[in-house]
Structures are given as C-alpha cells and as structure tokens.
C-alpha cells in the first residue's frame, strides 16, 4: 500500500517492527489521517506519520495501518 497525505487510516494491529512501542497498544482500533507519508521514495519500510483522532500525531510502521474507504 502506498500511503498518501490526507488518507483516512485505521491502526488495525500491533506491529512486530522494532519501532512499535508498548504505549502504542492503546492506539489499536483508532482512526486517523496520514499527515506525512514516506516523504521520499515510497519505501514500504518507512515509518508513516499519522494524526490519530483525539490521540495526537505519531509515526507508525506501515504494516499496522489499513486505509479506510
């Protein structure tokens, strides 16, 4: 999935990536908007910046995100 600015996404699962931190478990199930996708080369491994509804802006590994219709 190539993420783009402004897309609505959901944190669907915990990621096994090393950048996933325990406090992020509380974000699973939340919806948000992509505010800074991988800004250079559409790298599937890049961390994507997401503004979560009511829970602030954080960077997540892409495998925990799902684009909402």
């Amino acid at each position, binding site marked *: 999935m*190539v993420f*783009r600015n402004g897309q609505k996404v959901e944190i669907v699962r915990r990621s096994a990536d090393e950048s996933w*931190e325990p406090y992020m478990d509380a974000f699973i199930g939340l919806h948000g908007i992509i505010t800074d996708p*991988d800004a*250079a*080369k*559409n790298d599937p491994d890049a961390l994507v910046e997401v503004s979560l509804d009511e829970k*602030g802006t954080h*960077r997540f590994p892409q495998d925990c995100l799902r*684009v909402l219709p």
Partner: protein
Amino acid sequence: MANNGCPVHNTLSFLRDAIEGGAFKIPKTRRIALEVMELVEDLARGRGGPEHVPALESCVDELVANASDGEAGQAAQKVQISLLQFREVFESHAETHTCAGGDCVRLTPAPCQLACPAGIDIPSYLTLVGQGRYAEAVKVIREDNPFPWVCGLVCTHPCEFMCVRARMDSSVAIMDLKGVAAEKAMSARQYRNPEPAPDNGHKVCVIGAGPGGLTAAYYLALKGYRVTIIEALPVSGGMMMVGIPRYRLPREVIDREVSMIEALGVEFRYNTCLGKDITLEDLRGEGFEAYLLAIGAHGSYKLMIPGEEDYLQVFPAVDFLRRVSLGDHRPPGRRVAVIGGGNVAIDAARTCLRLGSEEVTILYRRTHDQMPAHHEEVVEAEEEGIHFSFLTIPKKIVGENGSVKAIVCVRAALSPPDEAGRQRPVPLEGSEYEMAVDTVIPAIGQEIDGRGLEGFQSMQWTRRNTIHVNTISMETDQEGVFAVGDAVTGPATVVEAIAGGKKAAIAIHRYFEKLPQPQFPPAPTRRRRMNFFQVPAGLKNDLKRVQMPFLNNDRRRITFQQVRLGLDDTQAANEARRCLRCDVCIRCGRCVEICRDKMGIGALELGYMNFDHPGLTDFKITAERCIACGACAANCPTGAMQMTDQEGFRVLSLCGTELNRLELEYCRTCGAVIGPARYHDYVTQRIREISPQLDDARMCLDCARKSTGRVQAEIEPPENI
C-alpha cells in the same frame, strides 16, 4: 471505580454515585465527602490551582478518619488510593488545566492541538490573531514551539488535516496565521523571550544546530541550564537553513528566531565537527554533563546506476541545496534532470530554475498522484515551468569528454496491487530512451551520517540506521545522552524535530533532577480558554479559506524572493473567525440529538461533528427552525452552546456563532419574560389539549395558571405530554 480513563473523572463519578447512593449516611462524613467532590470537580473543570491537590489530600485524610468502617469507609479508602496512585494526574489537571485522557470534557484539547507534534495551543492563538493581539499569540505559540515564524512558512501542518472545519468546507489556514502572528510581532518589536530561570550551573552540550537541537537549547536555557551548541556548518538552522530554499523560508526568518535563542545565553560554536574539530573527550573535559545529539540526516541515498560516480555534474540534491544556501549561486547546468518525487526533488528543481537552468525535468518512477511531495509544492513547481516525466526509471548516465551528455531511462507501468495493496513500477521492455541533459540531481532520500559519534559507545542504532531512543523521553541507550530530529526519526519534518527537542529538554531536566522519566508521550497542554468571537451564522458559514497571495510567476522563475507574500490584518482576522473552537465544543452531538429527538425540532444541522462520516453543516438553517427553547444549551457539557437574553432578544450561540436571535415577548399580565413568540407557540401547541383557554394569550406560566386553573381542575393531562 473504573480502572481505565482519567482518574480525576473516575474519582468524580465514583464520589457522585456514592454520595447520591447514600454511602455517606452520617452528616459529618457526607459534608466532608461533598467538600472532596467539590475539589475534584474544580480539577475536572479547569478551576484547580496549586493549592487544590494538597487541600484534597488533607480533606480525603479527614474523610478516611471519620468514615472508618462500612460502605462509607470503603468509598473513602478508594478515593484515597486513587489520589495516591494517580497524584501526578491530579496535579497535572491543576497545573495545566488539561485532561490527557479526554474524559474531563472541559479540559480536552482540540483535535488540531492534539495533531500538532509540538502540541501548540492552536485555538487560543487563532483567537488572539483574530483580535490583532499578535505578540500574545506568539507568546502562546512559543510555550510549545520556539519557531513560530519558521513553522508559519514551512510546517507540514498536520493540524490542518485534523481541522474540524475541513469536514464542513476547508480547513482553517492555521499555518499561515501562525506566520502572520510572528511576522507582525517581530515587525512591531514585540517578539520577546520569556524570563529564564536563574543559572543552575549544569552544562549541556547540543550537537547540531537544527530545529531539534535549537528547540532543546531554548527550553533548557529557560530552565537555567548552560547550553553550548556544536555545529559543523558555518550557520545555524540545520536543514531549515541548508535544506529548504530561501524562496520558501528566507534566511532572515531563521536568523531572527535563532538570535532569540542566542539572547538567552546559548553559546554557538560554528564550523566545529564532532570527531574532527573536537572530540567527546574534549567536551567531557569542559564539564558537560549531558549530551543531545541532533545531527540531522545530511547523507544521501545513491541511485546505484552506471555513470553516477563518473561525472562532476551528478550530485545529490541535499548537497546542491546546501551549496546554494551557503552562497554558491552558479547555475548547475542548462538542462537538468532531478530524480525523485519528494519535497527535496521539488526544492532542487525549483532552485535550478531560479539559478538560470533553461530546462528542468523531474523524473519520477511512479504516477503524479503517488508523489510523496506536498500537493501545493507540486502545483507551484508546475506553475513555474518545471517539467515532469512520470513512470520513468533512470537506467544509466552517459557522458562525453568527462561531462554528462544524457540520461538513459525506461518507461514503466504500475503493477497490479500485491497482497499489501502496493503497486510497483515495472519497466516496459523496449521502452528505453535517452534524454539529453547536462546535469543529474538525485533526490531519492536522505540518510544519517553517523561519523563522529563513535565515542558514544553504548548508544544503539536501529536497522533503519537511526539512533535508537525511547521516543517518550528521547533517551538513547547511553546514560546522559539524548537524541532528536532526523537522526532519530529518519528524514522527517521540522515540527517533529521541534517536538522531539521539547521532549528532550524535559527529559534532560528530569535526568538532572533525578526524577523518573514519563511512561507515556506528553499530552498537549491547554493554556487557557479564550473568550469567543461573536460571529453571525451566515458569516461563519460562508467565509471561505483565505487565498494566500503569491509572488508573480516571472519573479518566481528568476529570484529567490519569498513566494508566499503573507496575509494582511483583515484577511487574518477573517480567517481566524472560521475556527470552530473545538477546544470548547467537543462535538459530542448531544445538542443535535436533544433538538431532533427530544424536542422534535431538528434545528441543528451540524454534520461536521462526525469524524468518519461527516454530514451536512448549515449554521444558517437554525434561525429558520429553532424555537429558542434552550434544551441544547442546557445539555451542553462544556458551555459551547449558550442561550442568553440580550437587549430584548433571546440569542442562541455555538462557540460565539450566533445561530438564532428571536425577539422576546413579555407576559401581558405581569410583564415577566415569556420567551420568543416561536417558543411560546410551541408550548401552547403542546399544551393545547390541557389548556384550551390559553390559546394565543401571551402570559407567563404563573399568570396562565391563575387565569385557567379553576377551569382546568377537572381535566386529566394527556399521556403523551
């Protein structure tokens, strides 16, 4: 008591239930319990102060002592345990008037503030900008971000993505208004530093004068630390200075804001590269007790194609932009190919054009809509005459007599989505072609150059080649060493680096104070609750997002003058009026439900309240339907919806937006206010069956009762009333 959510809110709910449920039967314990509840309620409503938590503790101790057994004793102990366990949260409610859990509805930050990585109190400064109080606005911004002017020009503004107004039409131009505030305050010589704390004697060394390092230096200097910044370049600002071209961010803007940090006593050592000009041992010898690594990501990924290393006319975009920023304004070539689809590629291409290159083409291997660059930047580049070649993969750079002659490319098509939904550019066989160019600038990503950091031996690196930190406190794996910015996140945004710098400053202070580091990212702090603007519904509804005036295109193609020309006072004030004040209205939708379901009126069309499925919003329609009954205002948990009587009119307003204004009527018998005619008609209609005598008589309830009571004595009220 509930275990999840905000402990202050949970304690308040628990106490209220216990008191109402009769847990405190003895008058004395009930009185103390009520006092405890009052103090907790103050905290939950943002009325707490520094005395509240100690007062609460002593009150709770008294409650436990007096209600030692039975139901009252158990309830008192639960409150005491909650206070002991979550003292920090109670204190934070008192000090910051913010509820991180979002349960204390009066203290919940707005979505824009929550979205801002630096947590700036956006609704407050927008209100101040709208009133022309620019210096105060800058003061509010700098409580969380020492670069209001820089961020007013180049922030990626995640706040605007979360702006609730966007669900109605388009987001408020938050970034532009921040720029207006900083520019006007600076121009009026009212852009001032807060008073720093007295010198505490501790020395902190910051390595790198980018946004992260400078931010940390600012907040540490305010706390009384002696901060020294080591910078490899001859200028400060990091990527803000050498990565962002001057037409987007003039050098003077950075210089002025950095000079404010310097004025706090921060020492700058330029042209000093760690590991080359100075060693870690040297720094230790100077008595530094903590280090903050903010070295940025100044290295570049390579294309890994033949010819890349063979010609001087092939150079990475970040090197090129740095060279230009430091004063080298020679044209890079006549025909330039920039490779990549991100913001750096766009910046490099637009810079080439300004330096005199005749033809600049961006080669990108995917499609226009998949470009990671910001949409506005792409549009501006197109306007200036940059060419784009999409679905193009560079294969080889060819040259003649030691100079670049052309770049060989192949056309590509996007593959069908794979399991993860990702489409890949696939080269099309036989589509190879040669593009005549004399300069090639790869801009396919940056990486961290960790040379010079070898002395920090316990520090760990991630598999992405970034410094491993605890992202809550920005601590590395080596004690006393912290890291922020692109060196931690990989190439990211200015505002993220600023946020990291602020977190690091807090963590370094805690490190010196020997306090435990926080376990959860800091919640944005609501600084205050500003009074509302009074705006008519029609104006609020119809004000469109302000259009930023741009420099004319000819000048954009030949000079580095700032492209975005800024807003004037009127434009700024009108834009600020578009703000829906989501710091007060929490979009719970209770007003809409009450009006529609309980009153059967449906006068509130506030579709923006739904995050996932926003519906129609029309502030103007309320004036057509609303009867001014006040049910919405009475049920609003935050005071966003208000109904007041003003000079003969009943006015309904939502965060200052005047939704309805109806003339008041008075009782013909006693002269008391009986509300507007529409409300009176509604009530008369509903009670017509039980009070047929009243008809259209304009009487208050007391007088109506007196005049009809004798007649109505025998009538049963209908069941549906």
